[in-house]
């Protein structure tokens, strides 16, 4: 009797665990719209530092302080795009200037 029920109980437990995981994901808005997703990400970002602090206190060791990086990828990318486009826009006049200078140099050499 017990041998027959045990596989059923095991299967029911597995279904409960998997179903519970899906329900938690659905309930916290992880499977919803784009707006809900970005809101959830913001909440998770805000919740991480206090959670890390709690864990550190619980385990009783000091984490090394995270180094403050003064680099912003967004600013770097934007400035890169601006500089590239500016270089492209002045390229014809720059090339013509260099060509004139080069020709003048060659003329001076041949004098």
């Amino acid at each position, binding site marked *: 009797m017990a041998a027959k029920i045990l596989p059923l109980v095991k299967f029911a437990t*597995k279904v409960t*665990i*998997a179903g519970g*995981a*899906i329900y938690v*994901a659905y309930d916290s808005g*992880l*499977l919803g*719209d*784009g*707006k809900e*997703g*970005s809101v*959830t*990400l*913001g909440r998770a970002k805000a919740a991480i530092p206090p959670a890390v602090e709690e864990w550190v206190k619980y385990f009783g060791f000091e984490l090394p302080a995270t180094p403050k990086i003064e680099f912003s990828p967004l600013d770097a990318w934007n400035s890169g795009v601006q500089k590239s486009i500016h270089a492209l826009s002045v390229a014809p006049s720059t090339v013509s200037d260099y060509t004139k200078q080069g020709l003048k140099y060659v003329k001076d050499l041949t004098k």
Partner: protein
Amino acid sequence: MSEKELGQKWDRCLADCAVKLGTGLGLGIVFSVVFFKRRTWPIVFGTGLGLGMAYSNCQNDLRSHYVLHSKVAKEE
């Protein structure tokens, strides 16, 4: 659509992609461990599902500006 609005939509898209990818990966791991004897394919499948959901949401969000919305007038 203004540049600012487009930028905000792209930001939302990227955030949603990260969330859906993580969720898909997590659920894939759960299913892999619970039902499929720690095989790799449920994890890959879950990640793919998450990516697909994020792509679809992004597509709808970027198209929503151009889709006509209508309201049904109530009969009095």
